[in-house]
């Protein structure tokens, strides 16, 4: 039997169904492609929040600013192709806020570490101690595993099925 694996993309995704005798907001049901379609480039929109931990959806399109975090972050590319550029930070350049990515004012001065180009299904380490820039020639989508931070965008009411959408 020839199985057909279904993946989603910015252009083509099917959203599931939530039919519950409960407050749907407790389930915060969203779809990363729908979220990315409605996002500005490089907005980091939370789709998962577990107390201080988040997963954030990024629509990559063009060149982002430079980010760094006081802990490892991880990106999983879900559609398109994304290149991550890395610059090594001095110890005193590593952000010391509680958690999550912070946007730097400019490309930090420091040695280039190199770059990673990733496509659907690839997971990329965004290591503590490095700053990174996200770039894409065409729109692409990634999920960032990180912490709630200054760049985290929350618009749960807009992205989640609440049962109060117009029919």
């Amino acid at each position, binding site marked *: *039997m*020839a*199985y057909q*694996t*279904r*993946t*989603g993309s910015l252009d083509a*995704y099917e*959203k*599931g*169904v*939530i*039919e*519950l*005798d*409960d407050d749907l*907001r*407790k*389930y*915060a*049901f*969203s*779809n*990363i*492609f*729908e979220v990315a379609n409605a996002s500005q480039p490089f907005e980091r929109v939370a*789709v*998962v*929040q*577990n*107390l201080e*931990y988040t*997963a954030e959806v990024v629509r990559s399109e063009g060149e982002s600013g430079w980010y760094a975090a006081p802990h*490892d972050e*991880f990106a*999983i590319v*879900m559609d398109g192709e994304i290149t991550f550029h*890395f610059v090594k930070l001095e110890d005193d350049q590593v952000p010391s806020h509680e*958690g999550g990515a912070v946007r730097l004012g400019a490309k930090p001065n420091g*040695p*280039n*570490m*190199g*770059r*990673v*180009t*990733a496509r*659907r*299904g*690839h*997971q*990329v*380490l965004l*290591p503590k101690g*490095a700053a990174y820039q996200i770039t894409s020639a065409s729109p692409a989508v990634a999920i960032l*595993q990180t*912490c709630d931070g200054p760049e985290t965008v929350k618009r*749960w009411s807009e992205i*989640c099925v*609440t049962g109060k959408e117009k029919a």
Partner: protein
Amino acid sequence: MSNVLEAKVAKVGTDEVTGYSSYQLGSFTFRRDEYFAHVSWPKGSHIMEVDRFLRAMVRDIGWGFFYGWIFFDDIFGTTNHYGTVDIFAGSYDRGCKEAGIDFLETFKAEAVSEAFETISRDWISEGYDPLNAPLETGTPIGPKGKERTDPLLRAFIAAERMLGLEGDTPLRSEGAGQGINRAFADLEMSEPDIECEPGFEGQLHAINLFDHIARSDVTWNPSISAVTRANICCVTSEEHMLPVIHGNDRNEWFIQLTDEIHWNIADKESGAPRGRVVMKAGDVCAMPADIRHQGFSPKRSMLMVMENGTPDLEKRYASGELKPYPVDFG
């Protein structure tokens, strides 16, 4: 929590016809025949199809009893108290409670692990692996066959930082005999391109996570892919049905990476149904702390599970300090 019993598993006897042994742990006895597992306790007893029972049992041990409640079915299961474990029968079933036949005993976690491993080892024969999908393994029905000599339990494979990093858990590979599962044969796979400047070797890292998941020969058995502090991100390859019903003691999150899973949602305490969630590729959904859930994946799919492993978190949910759902909509 009631008294913690110092009980250990004991063999009760061996059936001459089928070859299977029966066991006792505390007030529970466990017996199997060609088709069924029978659990009995002072006030009642319960029959389960043996395939369902064994698929649940090996995962319960492999996960170290996981977070919260692991229901083998609506009646029987375990609750993890991280050090001690309850074995219960009917304690979270409205009907059983009303009939007064519910029963619960608390044991040391190692005693339950040892008991479940002993039972699984005796009740599983060559040709059947409850960690595999039903279409990819034999059946456990019938009399005892040849004993399996390979490891029965392939627990959680836990990356420390991220899969594939030097010194961390290696990726699955063709070379290690881990082929792409038939259900993902159509997926185009490629490797990420890493261009590392001299002097930073080993500091940049990227993997094909989908390739790693596609090579899993087990199902409904999540393994850790990447860790941010206490945030445990697991990936797993799901086919057929989750052999347990999970009632979490905290919130958890699912990100459906490919294909679709149907989740039945019920009240955690009573088992009363609340409805269903169908998750398709790209969907994200929280599983609140006051429900139980069971997934059905008609085609093998890829799922990412996010658990918050902060110590003692279960107590903060149990006390009401934390709400049983994760997001404040403001």
